Structures are given as C-alpha cells and as structure tokens.
C-alpha cells in the first residue's frame, strides 16, 4: 500500500489529451483541465486517507495486544512444573519403545532398575524378606505397584496370589527374591507362577535366588535363577538384564464409555495396580455410590477429615465405605495425607475428592500428632462456617448408618457442655459384648476411631496447647489426659459405627489386631433409630443409670466371674455385679475381669464414674466399682465386692496399647 503512494503523487500529467475514448467523453462533458485536476486531487486524498486509516489500524492493534499482555504476566512457577513433567512425557512418547530392565536377587539385597532409574532397592537387614513384585505399565513403563510378600511366613503367598490375580493382563511383572521366599510358597502360588510362564518360580527352593520379568498373560521376557547348594547357604546373586518392548497406549487401556467418571478411572488405572475390579475392562466396580440421602440430615454440612498415611489400599477401602454411607456429602470430605505420597493422592482423585498432602515434620508418634493438628486446623480453615468436624482414619470401615447416627446425636454436643466428643467406636463393643444398635453410652475415655470434634473445643482449648513436635506424644493419649479432658465425657454407641481393619500401622501388628480388633462388632443395619437420645445428657443420664441399677438383678457374687455360669442363661435381663475399686484410679479387679471377658484390657476404657456397661450372653451387664463409684450406694449390704488378684508375673503384653 505504502509503495503505491509515491507513484500517485507524480505531479504533472502533460498537455496531450485526445487519445482514449474515455477521456474524450469526459472532456466533452466539462472543462477538461479542471476535472483532471479534481480527479488527481481526489485520488491523492483517497490514498492519503487510506494510509492514515492503515496506520491507525496498526497502532490500535499494537496497543490492544500490549494491553492484553500488560500486567498479566506468566508465573515463574509454571516453568518449574513443566520441567518436572518433561522426562516422563519424553519416555512415554519418545522414539525408543523399549525399556531396559535390570533385576537383582541375592541374600541381602534386591534392586530393580528401569531405564537406569532405580525403582526398588532394599538392602536393609532383617527386612524385606520374600518375593518383591513390581508392576510396570506396559505403555509408559511407569511403576504401578510395588509389593513385598514374605513367603517365608505363612499366608503371605495367598496375598501374593490375590494381588497377582488383580493385575490387569498385559502389564509387565517383575519378581525378585530377597533372602528366602519359598518356605511357605504353596502350590496355588506356584501354579500361578507357572501360568505366568515362569520356569524357576514353581520350582523355587530353599534360599534360592530368582529374578523374573514377564508380561501378565504374555511372554516371559527374562528369568534367572540360582539354586542354593546347601541348607545353610544361599544361591548365588543373580542379575537379570532384559529389554521390555513397550506397547502402544491404546492397548494398555480399557474402552470405557467416555464419561467424567471413567475419565477419572482411566487416569487412575493407567497409574496404579492392585485395586481389583475398579480397573477391570469389562464391568468395572462403580466409583460413585449415590447412597440414599438422609431425611433431615443434621450433619450434611459438617466437614469430614480423613487422616491418612501411605496405605493407599486401606484408604481405597475406607473411602468406598465412607462414600457408601447414607447421608454422606462428598464435597465436605478432605483427605489429609501425611507425606508426599502419590498413590494415596491418586486414590483420592479416583473418587473425585479433595486431597491435601502434608510434608513430614517430625518422627513417628509426634509426626502423627503434628499431622492431626495441621489437618484439624486446615479443616476448620476450609470450612469456616462449620461448628464441628468429623475425624476419620484411613483404616476404618464406616457403617452404613454412620451419618444417621451422628445426625441423631450431634445436637448433644451443642446442648451439653459436659461432653467432649461423640465417637462411633465402643472400645468394649465386641461380638459377644455388644447387642443393641439403638443404645448409647456416656464414657469418660475418648475412643477416637471415627469421632466428632467441636470447633470451639479445638480452637479455644486444644489447638493453642497442642503438643509441639519435640514432645513425642500420641495425640490421642494427650487428648485423654485429664488436663485436656477436664472431666468431660464422650457419647458412644453400644454397637460401633466404625470398624478398625488396619493391621499394618505405627502401633499395630497382626497379632495385636487379631486379639483386640478382629472380633469387634460393627453395625450393618441401615437407618437405626437411636433410642432416647436426650437421656444421654448429664442429669438425665444419671437418672437413667439409677433406674437401671434399681431394676438390675444382683448376680451371685460367690461365683467366679470368669466362669461362663456367672451370668444365668437368660436373655434381655439386666444384671449388676460389684467389684472392688478402692480409688478412682484403682482398676486392678476391672482389668482382670476384662481379661476374662476377652475385651479391651490394656488400659481402662468405657467407664462412667466407676461403672461399666456391656452385654453378656444377650443380657445387659453392669459392673460397679465399690467403693469408688457413686453408684456403690446401690450395693446391697450383704454383698462383698469381687476382688480378682492380678497374675503374679507380668505377662509379656503385646507392644503398644494405642490404636492410632
């Protein structure tokens, strides 16, 4: 355009005129010279205007662009995020479609490296014995699961079979043995290894070393094995190096309908393994549950904090039961993960919930305690309107009427200052000692394991003096201390609304779980109507206890309370027994009685002013500590309180006695 301008400005258009018909016609009409001049000026003006408009346009566009860019500058963080993402992308879509995998098996060390990156390394002493299994995504090479099965010990091979069966076909499986992995490797497990194509696996012998790489349902990609020469020695270390060809991303994925839910499922299933049918291509288990809403739900807007560590399978089970409970509102749930772990976060994302990671501050118990504090503070920050919070842990099953139970009882926390919490867990509620899902108790101990915390209690009392990291305290032990509890009590149900299934944990092991948690009663009846909730208020409860004691039949105190015949073979009666309890903290006889009853005996739980309430042989059974309990007045003068001697020697009590 601009190039044209100068040519239009060429001034003199000479004197010669009559040539073209056009000009002739023009000249005939008017004065030629004047018209020509007019045309010329017009053209020049036109061109000038065009140029101006053009320049204006350019300037305008420039300004608009710079305006839009102005203050809205990109953030630097972004580059960092991008940087982190890059390597994984490169691996997924790069030209090289082969992974090189190294697997090492020996007596004291195992490691697995994928493309030079160590994904497993275990050379700790006295740990990690057995068969280590790693699952890789066949399209990306990402580690999807990492497990160790101590098949030297019984039943671990069953867990391994369960796990290997859950792995989707086509995945890359890596197995390696550390120390010993054959002693309790039974036939089913060996058959499974054979079906995977392994030669040495089914024949694995005492202290053999073994490394295996294969595709589930596909070819074996490499295997090495070294037999132990003698009973007292180990096989030679083996190092297996093999190439694993990657398949295309499409092959690795299922063809689920394209919905928002399935998008979440796909993201989850391409990253992790070991969650069973949630990732099955045909007919996967639902990840949305839509349980019935609760009519008049008083806890609909109460935030739920799920305290979690790095036990993603537990978390998965827990969230399933939580999201299936009637009256749950998923947007009120926040999962707090103690540590920068990815897999629990993936589980949270699978269910479309909010997850928050907490970088570890201190060690062990203090760490759990700091995690609790951060989680509770965050919960009340995220839901500033909330007056309560429900606190759950990742190793709990949640009863179907959990929220219904809370909805019916939560007003007590508001109306009764003498309450500390509402808990879904009855420490003494075992299969044989709990009966009535509609019955509630008041207890002086704080059971935890699914409980409701009042915001004012947390903000005004607990948060300001929460144990600092250098005090290596358990948060729940601290909360049970008299300085914190200040004589207040918790409401609990007779039949627990939560079930503690965790057997791996800080204070937990298989034996301990079997002894104290496995036989716990757990309510499975939906929509239980709680009985006489207002009678749980301070004064009303005293009246209720007095009424109960008045109508209770006094048991034969000459009999041994550890004998089954101590209680008559009736049903639906109320019985009372009096035991010796000299002071408020004298629990000698109670502890012995609890042992006999096979209930929690590691410390005192479930008492209310020297009174314990439970069921025995379908009868309501009351135990009163005399003379410490104010209910001692109900003791007939003729009755001598039962005294049980503690065993002379301290038996080796199993480990710690807490249930965090």
């Amino acid at each position, binding site marked *: 355009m601009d190039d044209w301008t100068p040519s239009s400005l060429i001034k003199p258009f000479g004197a010669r005129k009559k*040539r073209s018909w*056009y000009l002739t016609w023009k000249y005939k009409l008017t004065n030629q010279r004047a018209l020509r001049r007019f045309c010329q000026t017009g053209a020049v003006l036109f*061109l000038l205007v065009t140029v101006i408009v053009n320049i204006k346009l350019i300037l305008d566009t420039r300004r608009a662009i710079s305006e839009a*860019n102005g203050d809205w500058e990109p953030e630097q963080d972004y580059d960092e995020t991008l940087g982190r993402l890059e390597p994984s992308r490169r691996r997924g879509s790069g030209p090289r479609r082969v992974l090189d995998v190294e697997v090492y098996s020996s007596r004291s060390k195992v490691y697995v490296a994928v493309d030079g990156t160590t994904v497993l390394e275990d050379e700790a002493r006295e740990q990690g014995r057995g068969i280590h299994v790693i699952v890789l995504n066949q399209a990306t090479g990402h580690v999807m699961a990492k497990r160790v099965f101590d098949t030297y010990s019984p039943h671990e091979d069953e867990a391994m079979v369960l796990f290997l069966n859950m792995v989707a076909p086509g995945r890359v499986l890596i197995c390696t043995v550390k120390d010993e992995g054959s002693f309790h490797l039974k036939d089913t497990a060996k058959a499974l290894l054979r079906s995977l194509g392994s030669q040495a696996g089914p024949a694995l012998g005492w202290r053999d070393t073994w490394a295996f790489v294969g595709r589930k349902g596909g070819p074996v990609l490499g295997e090495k094995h070294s037999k132990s020469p003698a009973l007292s020695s180990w096989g030679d270390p083996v190092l297996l190096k093999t190439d694993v060809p990657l398949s295309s991303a499409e092959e690795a994925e299922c063809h689920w309908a394209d919905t928002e839910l399935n998008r979440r499922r796909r993201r989850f299933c391409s990253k992790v393994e070991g969650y069973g049918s949630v990732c099955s291509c045909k007919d996967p288990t639902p990840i949305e549950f839509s349980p019935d809403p609760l009519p008049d739900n008083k806890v609909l807007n109460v935030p739920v904090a799920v305290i979690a560590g790095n036990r993603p399978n537990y978390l998965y089970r827990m969230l399933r039961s939580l999201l299936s409970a009637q009256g749950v509102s998923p947007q009120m749930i926040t999962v707090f993960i103690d540590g920068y772990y990815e897999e629990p976060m993936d589980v949270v994302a699978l269910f479309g919930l909010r997850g928050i990671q907490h970088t570890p501050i201190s060690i062990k118990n203090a760490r759990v305690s700091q995690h609790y504090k951060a989680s509770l503070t965050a919960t009340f*920050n*995220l839901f500033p309107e909330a007056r309560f919070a429900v606190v759950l842990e990742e190793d709990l099953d949640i009863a179907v009427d959990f929220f219904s139970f809370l909805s019916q009882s939560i007003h007590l926390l508001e109306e009764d200052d003498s309450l500390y919490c509402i808990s879904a867990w009855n420490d003494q509620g075992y299969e044989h000692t709990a009966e009535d899902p509609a019955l509630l108790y008041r207890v002086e101990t704080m059971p935890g394991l699914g409980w409701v915390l009042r915001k004012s209690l947390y903000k005004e009392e607990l948060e*300001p003096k929460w144990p600092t990291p250098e005090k290596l305290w358990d948060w729940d032990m601290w909360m049970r201390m008299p300085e914190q509890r200040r004589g207040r009590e918790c409401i609990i149900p007779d039949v627990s609304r939560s079930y503690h299934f965790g057997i791996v944990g800080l204070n937990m092991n298989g034996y301990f779980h079997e002894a104290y948690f496995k036989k716990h009663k757990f309510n499975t009846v939906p929509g239980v109507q709680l009985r006489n909730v207002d009678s749980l208020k301070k004064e009303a409860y005293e009246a209720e206890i007095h009424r109960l004691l008045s109508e209770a039949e006094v048991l034969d105190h000459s009999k041994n309370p550890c004998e089954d015949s101590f209680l008559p073979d009736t049903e639906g009666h109320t019985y009372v027994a009096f035991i010796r309890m000299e002071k408020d903290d004298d629990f000698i006889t109670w502890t012995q009685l609890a042992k006999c009853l096979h209930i929690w005996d590691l410390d005192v739980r479930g008492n209310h002013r020297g009174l314990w309430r439970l069921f025995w042989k379908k009868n309501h059974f009351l135990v009163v500590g005399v003379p410490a309990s104010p209910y001692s007045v109900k003791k007939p003068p003729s009755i001598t309180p039962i005294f049980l001697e503690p065993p002379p020697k301290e038996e080796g009590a199993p480990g710690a006695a807490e249930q965090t």
Partner: protein
Amino acid sequence: MSRINKNVILAVLTLTSSAFLLFQLYYYKHYLSAKNGAGVSKSKGSRIGFDSTQWRAVKKFIMLTSSQNVPVFLIDPLILELINKDFEQVKNTSHGSTSECKFFCVPRDFTAFALRYHLWKNEEGWFRIAENMGFQCLKIESRDPRLDGIDSLFGTEIPLHYICRLASHAIHVVVFHERSGNYLWHGHLRLKGPVDRKFVPFRKLQFGRYPGAFDRPELQQITVDGLEVLIPKDPMHFLEEIPHSRFIECRYKEARAFFQQYLDDNTAEAMAFRKSAKELLQLAARTLQKLGVRFWLSSGTCLGWYRQCNIIPYSKDVDLGIFVQDYKSDIISAFQDVGLPLKHKFGKVEDSLELSFQGKDDVKLDIFFFYEETDHMWNGGTQAKTGKKFKYLFPKFTLCWTEFVDMKIHVPCETIDYIEANYGKTWKIPVKTWDWKRSPPNVRPNGVWPISEWDEVIQLY
C-alpha cells in the same frame, strides 16, 4: 501514449485505493466490534434489544447455571448500578412484563457473576456442558490460601475464576470462597502458562486485579430483562464494597521463618495474653463496625500481623488507627456500653486525639486518630506529666482487608512503608523495651499543650 497510460493508471489506482479503503473500513469496524461490544450496539443505535450478544450470553449462562445448580449471583458493577437506580421498579416487575431490554443489553465486554464455591456440588461436569452450549471457557486455579497459614500443606488447587466467552461477550465468574472471619474471598486473576492472552481483554475485568474480600451478602431473586437472577439484597452496599475490596494475605512464609529464628513464646502467660488481646480486638472490631467507623491495625498490633501473623505476646495492648474525619462522638459511650471504660483521652478532635480503653485482664485498647496532610499522615501523642506533644509521621496509605485472628480487618495496604516509618528498617528484630516517645524513628516533638487546655486535652480516668 504515455499520457493515456498515466490517466488509466490514475483511474485504476483510484479504484483500487477506494476498494482498499472500503475493505479497511470494514475490517476496522469489525475489529472494533469484536474487541468491544459497544461498536456494534452504538452503530445500531435504537436497535438495542433482546437480540444483543450480551443478553444472549447472559441468558445462556443463566440457563446453564440453573440446570446445573451452579450457585451464582450477579455482581456486575455496571448492571447492579443500573438495577440499584430503579430498584423498586425492578423488584416489582413480574416475569412477562418486560418489553425493553434495559440492563443486560447495555454495551459492555463482560458480565460478572460470583460463584459461592462451598455450595457447589457438581464441579466436574459443568465445564464440559458449558462448552457444549457454545461457551469457550478459561479456568484459573491457584493453591488454596486457607492452607498457607499451616505449615507445609499442599492441597488440590482451587478454582478462582472462570471466563466463558460466547461470541463477542464474556461471562466472568468470580469464585467466592468462605474464609474464617465470616467473609467471602476471591483470588487474584493471574494468567499462568500457555493461556491465550487475547482470549478476552483481561484489562477490562472488574474483578481479579487483586484478591478481594466481601461481607457475605444476603441474596434475593429478581427478574431482570426476562431473566431470573440472584443479586445481593443490598446492591448499594455491595457496590460500595467493590472499590475497597482489595485483600492482602498475611505473610505466612516469612512469619514461619521469623519463628524459626526467634521461637514462639508458648508460655501460659503469653497464651493468656494472646487470648485476651484477641477477644478485646474482636470486641472492639464489632463495636466500631456497628458504629460504621473505619479502622485499621496500627503500631504493635500491625507489626504483629505483618511480622508473625499473630499478636505479639509482650505488646501489652491492642492498637487501632482511625481517620479523624471518621471520628464519632459516640465512640466512647459505645465502648463503655460493651464493658470497655475510657482510661484516658489525650488531645482533641482538631489536634492529636488519642483514646485509651481498659479491657479485661489488664489489656489496653489504644485508638490513634490519624490526620491527613498533603504529603503525609500523622497521629499525635501526649505525655500526661509534662503536657508535651508528639507527632508520628507516616507516608500516605490506603486501606486493605486482611485476615487476622479469625477476622476480616483493615491494615494499611502499603504495610511495609507504614511499619518502617514506625519501627525503622530493623522491624524484623524483636525489641521488648520500647519507649514510645523516643524509639520510633517517625516521632517528632510537637510543642506543649497550653496549660489552660490541659483539663480538656489530658483526661485520665
């Protein structure tokens, strides 16, 4: 020959250039209208009606939000202003009776809605449905500031803004989050990463230049231009809040660093003082809010907020600032009514006014009144024994919201200048002995009260 050619060239030139010009004019107009809805509407003049892009975009958006249960309400300042002007009439208009599109057809680039995030249940599917309806949407997320106060938590990012474009009009959805202190907060609209910077003229957005804080408004449903929308019950109040809504977050990271260096005082006395100071501050805030008096954290309380996001346990009092033009004579009686008797009163409204109230547990509430000069602000001090006057100079400042001890409260936006004026460059180092007559770097002697005035300007109780 050449002559004729020249004439022909001239004619051709003229034709092309006019064609060019026409094309350019057309393009220019088109460009203008795309950039600014005003272009089209203005040129159409009287044809403003229900076919405008603005109205159609808003209508579609309202259809979307009501079908998807997205809890939004209208906060567009331009439209709220118009609605507020003939509020009575709008309120009485029933569904069918609108004949003219008066509000939503007004030429503008954006229509702003607020989204009450805590009521939102189906966040996931919404985006896709919006896109299916023809909206092009942009989502701006960020980390949750409510977790910043807590050590080392990393959460799922929360949405802060959605901008949904339909033809030349865009709907700006400002996500309002609930915060401790009974208020709503919205985030800063910051473009991260590969975002189309020309998606909409971001400059012209009414919300998002800064984070903002608002009182939680009561809402009401009205019918505007045939569309049912929720608006704040008191649009006037909401409109007044907008220009002063800028919010600044406490500097939690720096506060943590401070506590790593100097350790927090967790003794029983410190905790007791913090508790009473917090209660006093909350009581004072409630009382002043009821009177409609603007105030901000000053002196030691402001330093505590800025440096450690908490009350300084050895500060012994709570300090507030008030512009003297906001002074109301019933401040003293209002404080007395809530159980805070006047302890002393120095100065007078015209000069160096300072009030002190006695709180519970020996915690004092000091209120300093600030006087504005052309290039600075100042507040006065008086020594009771000698009648000496002092002046504390501050650079000019404006007020921002922040969150402190579970309250939405004002602080000077230019906090660092304010604090450095008062405590010098070394404000980061805790000092336990502070002489208010000598220590502050901004203190100036200001003469002596004439003895005749002492009775008025030095009142001790």
